[in-house]
């Protein structure tokens, strides 16, 4: 089984390389190191939120509230910054994580103790959080000139030539990788997603798993919201509308099984990068930005079909007992 996943990620990686080179053929400036770093940095937000989504998808659910969580946490930190510009900027990192963990815990409680299906719980909180953004901001925007310099530097500031947001995304990815691969809780998530009743018999604490994935999901989404708001220099009630589906798209592209149980951090990162490259290439290739959604749709459908066909072949070769 491991081989199949590795193959899926390899093919996404290969596709990314080919695509990047092809774009470079048309527009050589795209391949400049500085530009590539910019593209990867641009993908940080999507990558972080998609990782937020990964845990929930692994247990066979879906978190529709990630975009609203981004918007709400983004608004709270932006308002805090607007009224208290003296607070050092780094404080907003733990602050957003904390806000997000609390918002995610609401989903977690609804799922773990309320026994609501994740999609329903997060459908409800999605509306509630989105409305809450409007309530706390009274419909006002917080714009770039109302944010402190330090706050604006959270995504853009540089360390060793790389933007902070890239470092943050890398740290999150490393944390998530270790969590999912080397801790008991992480393995429990896979076990539970692969076969819930088997995992229960094996002593996996169902509620703990559900709480864990939702708290992590909320925390990461909120962190992404902080970066989003400070990067684009605006916090408003429409922030990141529709982003929840982009995260599912990135996960599916990265070979994550939407029905749960399988999918890796690397796959999600590659899936996000793929979408990031496509979106960044359009202006470079002088193509209309209005093509973005169409291309994304074609890519998702192709990836979904390709993954399914690959799985079917793998299953067939397994059941016939012959190696391909």
């Amino acid at each position, binding site marked *: 089984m491991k081989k199949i996943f590795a193959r899926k990620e390899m093919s996404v990686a290969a596709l990314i390389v080919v695509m990047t080179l092809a774009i470079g053929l048309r527009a050589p400036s795209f391949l400049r190191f500085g530009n590539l770093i910019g593209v990867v940095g641009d993908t940080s937000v999507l990558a972080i939120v998609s990782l937020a989504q990964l845990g929930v998808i692994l247990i*066979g659910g*879906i978190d*529709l509230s990630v975009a609203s969580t981004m918007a709400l946490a983004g608004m709270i930190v932006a308002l805090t910054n607007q009224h208290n510009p003296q607070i050092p900027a780094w404080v907003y990192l733990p602050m957003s994580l904390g806000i997000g963990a609390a918002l995610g815990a609401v989903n977690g409680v*609804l799922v773990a103790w*309320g*026994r*609501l*299906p994740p*999609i*329903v*719980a997060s*459908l*409800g*909180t*999605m*509306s*509630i959080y*989105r*409305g*809450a*953004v*409007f*309530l706390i901001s009274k*419909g006002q925007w917080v714009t770039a000139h109302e944010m402190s310099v330090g706050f604006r530097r959270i995504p853009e500031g540089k360390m060793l030539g790389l933007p902070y947001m890239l470092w943050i995304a890398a740290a999150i990815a490393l944390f998530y990788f270790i969590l999912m691969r080397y801790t008991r809780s992480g393995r429990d998530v896979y076990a539970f997603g692969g076969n*819930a009743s088997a995992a229960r018999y094996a002593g996996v604490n169902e509620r703990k798993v559900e709480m864990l994935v939702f708290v992590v999901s909320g925390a990461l989404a909120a962190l992404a919201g902080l970066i989003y708001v400070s990067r684009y220099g605006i916090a408003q*009630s429409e922030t990141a*509308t*529709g982003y929840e*589906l982009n995260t*599912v*798209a990135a996960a*599916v592209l990265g070979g994550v099984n*939407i*029905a749960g149980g399988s999918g890796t951090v690397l796959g999600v990162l590659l899936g996000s990068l793929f979408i990031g490259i496509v979106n960044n290439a359009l202006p470079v290739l002088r193509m*209309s930005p*209005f*093509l*973005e*959604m*169409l*291309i*994304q*749709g*074609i890519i*998702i*459908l192709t990836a*979904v*079909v390709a993954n*399914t*066909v690959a799985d079917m072949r793998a299953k067939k070769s397994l059941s016939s007992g012959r190696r391909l």
Partner: protein
Amino acid sequence: MSTEGTGFVDTSRLTRMSAGRRVADFLLRWETMLFIIFVLVCVANSILSPYFRDPKNLFETTFNFMEKAIMAMPMMFVILLGDIDISVSGIISLSSLFMGMASLGGIDTPTLVMIGLGVGLACGFFNGLLITQLDIPSIAVTIGSSSLFRGIANAVLGDKAFTKFPDSFAYFGQGYIGTSPIPFEMVAFAVTAIIAGVILNLTAYGRHTYAIGNNKVAARFSGVPVKRVRLLAFAANGLAAGIAAVLLTSRIGSMRPNIASGWDLDVITTVVLGGVAITGGKGNIVGVLISIFLLGFLKFGMGVLNISGKVMNIITGILLIVAILLPKFTDNVRMSIRAGAAKATAKARKTA
């Protein structure tokens, strides 16, 4: 996911229950609770606004939610099957786009309508074929196709809009039946609802829908044509989105690529609030119908109070969660009442 709180025990025991417990059972039922909230909303509305007491104005308020109501009918089947479709607003956008282009080319109204419905149906079949033939989860397919459908509209129109439609086209979304105050949209919804109700409750297709939703594998081994039932449900969902596209485009008289965006989750919320389990197999049309008018009138009432649409979201969200948590809670209460009663009778028998 969870199978607790399914109502299937009730029917077999209904005959043996005392009258008192039957009343309690009825009061604790989902639809009853939903209906009570609905009545409360109506009472509050009529106190808040004199317009609400006038039937003519009451009909006017339905304009705002009839398109979604029509879409909720086939969506109910899709969710009962244990599937989901988040591409319906994308379908509206594509269907509306084709109507706009055709209208620019001077096509007459009846043909425009046929184009709108045809595009919707074709999109639904596209989804259904990918989902059933390749056995891909419906959420993955419809996330992709949603981007595809709306993406085509984006690519063609960009930030422009179609605003030129024939005068007679305006009837569908703005017209009334004869001289009565009844909007055409409402009749379209009533017809859709009757068809949906008949299919769900009186035909083999309806029973197959429940069977598949409860246990797909068992249904297949019992000879239910699982693929065909699911394919038809997605096709119907596309067709309903086509109908909604005709009504909505006609009502607002223009088409922009962002038309109806976010409606997928609105429609799904309506169906789930109506008591249809997102995991499939459980729910009925009565609940969904109450839910449609509850949400519609609730939004009207909040509009009268000048509450922003964004804040309404909070109330919709809370309502959704509470409405789903509450029956689970009351189910537990009912179960424990029944367990208590059973214990008591057993004791009585022992002593006798």
